[in-house]
């Protein structure tokens, strides 16, 4: 089955980021000192990132690392989330369809998620953490303040939906997917006008 890419209900948890107070207090005040806001929405892509049209190099690095932490699929005999299922391409295409406001929130969320470990892990970014520390960090964010939970839940959903929406992942779940055409179910059409 062809995988269609959309902008579904994944951005809900990022809504608190649109509050100016949070932007000012957390994103810019607390974290921007080490990285610099100029990189936040940057698009200076490395050659390997050029196959993605909408995600930046930094964003791809963060999402790739989070995908590795979230979905160690090969260990479970599932199709690889990075090599078989085009999770990143799905995410890239979804990103391209986002409204500008949602796109900016996603950028901000990824930037926070990438840089927040600098507060607790000796100035290391998330994508540089080893497996154990990366898992520890994700768990801490999941149990953190409301905006940290919102960011983490949203990014996790963003990735996992774009993995499991691919029909190659379904046999592992015994999930059947769309069935009407497979079953040859007859269409009934419009109901007849009611008798008055």
């Amino acid at each position, binding site marked *: 089955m062809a995988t*269609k890419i*959309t*902008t*579904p*209900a*994944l*951005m*809900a*948890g*990022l*809504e*608190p980021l649109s509050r100016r107070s949070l932007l000012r207090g957390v994103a810019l005040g607390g974290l921007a000192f080490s990285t610099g806001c100029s990189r936040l929405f940057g698009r200076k892509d490395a050659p390997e990132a050029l196959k993605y049209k909408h995600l930046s190099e930094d964003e791809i690095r963060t999402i790739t690392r989070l995908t590795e*932490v*979230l*979905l*160690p699929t090969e*260990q*479970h005999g*599932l199709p690889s989330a990075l090599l078989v299922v085009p999770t990143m391409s799905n995410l890239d295409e979804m990103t391209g*369809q986002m409204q500008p*406001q*949602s796109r900016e929130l996603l950028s901000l969320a990824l930037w926070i998620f990438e840089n927040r470990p600098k507060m607790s892990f000796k100035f290391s970014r998330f994508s540089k953490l080893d497996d154990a520390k990366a*898992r520890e960090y994700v*768990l801490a964010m*999941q*149990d953190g303040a*409301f*905006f940290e*939970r*919102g960011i*983490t*839940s949203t990014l*996790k*959903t963003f990735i*996992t*939906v774009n993995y*499991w*929406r691919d029909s190659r*992942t379904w046999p*592992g*779940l*015994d*999930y*059947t*997917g*769309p*069935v*009407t055409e497979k*079953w040859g*179910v*007859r*269409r*009934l*059409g*419009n*109901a*007849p*006008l*009611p008798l*008055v």
Partner: protein
Amino acid sequence: MKTEKVFFSDSVGAEARKEGLDVTQGRTLSGDVNLSADVVVVGSGAGGAVMAYELARAGLRVIVLEAGPYVPSSEFSEDFTESLERLYADHGSQTNKDGDLLVLQGACVGGSTVVNGCVSFRTPDFILRDWQEQFGLSALTPEEMEPYFRKVERNLSIEENAGHEIARHSQLALAGAKALGWSVKPFKRNIRDCALTGHCLSGCKTDRKQSMLVTYLPWAVAHGAKIFSDVTVTQVISRAGQARGVIAEAKDSSGTTVANIRVDAPIVVAAAGAVQTPLLLLRSDLANGSDQVGRNFACHPSMYVGARYPEPVYAWRGALLGVYIDEFLPPEKGGFILEAGGLGAVEMTLITEPGSGEAFLDYMEDAKYYSGLVTLIHDHNVGRIGWDGDNKRVDYQLADVDFDSMLRAIKAAAQVHFAAGAEEVFVPSTKPLRIRSVEEIDQVLSELSNAPQVLRMVSYHPQGTCRMGSDPDRSVVAEHGESHDISGLYVADASLLPTSIIVNPQVTVYALASRIADQLIARREQYLGNASKGSGESG
């Protein structure tokens, strides 16, 4: 300026198309378009479609303007994520300000009726009594509403689920409730010969769901109504306290405005849903003498309480919704119901926080063992819909008293699951919480608090933002649906409901719209007689 002539056909001997719908799509329009009709209906969902049909059948010239696209059922994909993008408001990302309540509404021709689960309840009698006592809606008695309920139930093939429509997930809920001695019943649904695909929320590909797309809208067209899709109404026009029509924009598929539309009509029916209708009235600066437009937003915040069973359930197989537990329906017993519902594999990733890495994969690999119960509570009207510049704003934070109801509903769902043999219950939270026995329920739930980003809530039933009432200082419209302030301006959607009704509201909206149509028809001369007088609109 281009003036489009709309030809309204004679409705005598009307016959509906066998399949599909005659719709003028916004992208085919250009420039300035002027239309005229007796009635312009804003929105084509449960309220708008019923109004369009009933008014067209009575001989009125009706134009329906729908902001969403026309998607024929043959194009439905049975892919929930794709359906969110194509058929739902804001591509399925409409949320409250805190981002922890997803407000899912259909945004296509047929509205939410296209993507709902077919659940069909009459308004509970105690809710109607409450409306009489609190809001002076003295005419809305169970006896008055009875023929309207009966009519829409007949028109929409609403029947109780038969045995084969109680899928495995619902059989478990049935067994659990019976073991606890709790009241449990099969749903009634508006469906003909259900094909048991389980994809209701992505639209019914074979037209078995009796949504507005295959019933009232084609019937309205058969009686001469004209439907336009991709047309967003931006303003209701009035003059000297009388409705005069609407201003709208037609969009192409990219959302670019391709035509500016004006519809002159002495009767305007706002039926865009409980989020969009108040936004339209607020933007029009109309009908708000009470300052109640947009206030009193309630939404039945619901959660999916999942559980793992020792034997496969395959929650995606069979009819999506089979039975409901109404043991706690009366407010004095809790004011909530539990609905046994199916779920697809992708949606499994959304309902709880299973952890990361191995834990997440372990969770997903067991997907076929999961079943779930949807909680619906009688929430209070504490929210508000409004504008924040050019963006809509949904203010809704669960009231403390409603949070207690949510906890009671989760607890009851967990009890049902364990009584049915579940091994563990997943708490619908952003924290990785699981309950492994009845004894653990209270302790685990004590870790929840009424704060943003704690519960995973979804609203399928926004309501209350233009409430009915007899007092113009406390309500937006009278019990016959007409604005207290603007003659000829009607509201006919879930905005009307003065309180949340606990149960799924589609039948309530159908029945109220049918009644409002009758009331409007009885007053038709009042508006049509005024239609030709003067000009100089405002609004």
